[in-house]
């Protein structure tokens, strides 16, 4: 009985001690905004290969917007730009 009570007491003390650690752990991951939106946003351009490549996977696929945080509107523009760049052989259809 006495053992149980001690366990309980430590158990009850647990959350109390955990509280500060939890507050430390809950860091705010700042939501990244769309790099193309806003007045200072970048411009989607099919000629700007180095910019496009930031939004492509290593194999040359277009990354989903949930990873790159591009807005839906600009993701549309981006995918079109990538396809134009591919047609002009500026970036590969399939990278090896």
């Amino acid at each position, binding site marked *: 009985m006495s053992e149980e009570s001690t366990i309980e007491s430590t158990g009850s003390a647990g959350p109390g001690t955990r509280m500060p650690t939890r507050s430390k752990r809950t860091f*705010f991951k*700042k939501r*990244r*905004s769309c*790099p193309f939106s806003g007045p*200072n*946003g*970048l411009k989607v*351009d099919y*000629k*700007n*290969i*180095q*910019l496009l490549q930031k939004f492509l996977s290593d194999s040359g696929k277009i990354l989903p917007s949930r990873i790159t945080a591009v807005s839906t509107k600009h993701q549309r523009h981006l995918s079109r730009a990538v396809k*134009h760049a*591919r*047609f*002009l*052989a*500026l*970036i*590969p*259809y399939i990278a090896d």
Partner: protein
Amino acid sequence: MKQKLNNYEFVCIFTQDTTEQIVRSTVSEYTQKIKEVGGEVTKTEFCGMRTFAYPIDKKKKGYYILLNLKMPTEFVRKFDVFLKNDSKVVRFLMLRVDELDAKPSELLQQRHNLDTVYKAQIRSGKIYQQQPESA
């Protein structure tokens, strides 16, 4: 009657067998053609020989040019046919744009400086934005 002019961005790739001189003379030929139909060429860029990301017609390289055009819509079709019959042209892309960019394009800049403008933009604020650490 005044024709309606649209803005076009035109990228064209010539075969690797051509010389710069031939490219320049063909481009001036195009410019002449566009002027004849009442169009206008606002920018001409010779972006030079580039290596393709994948082989086109078993060729590895091509000479890229970029033109900013103002052109009547009806002429686009005719120009397309004309380009398709040109054996020097590997590929071309004609896009209608809202505004023509007068600044040198990325395609031309890449020859000289590798990623400066947009990288600085990204670093300064957008993508790698970090919270200042509070004490």
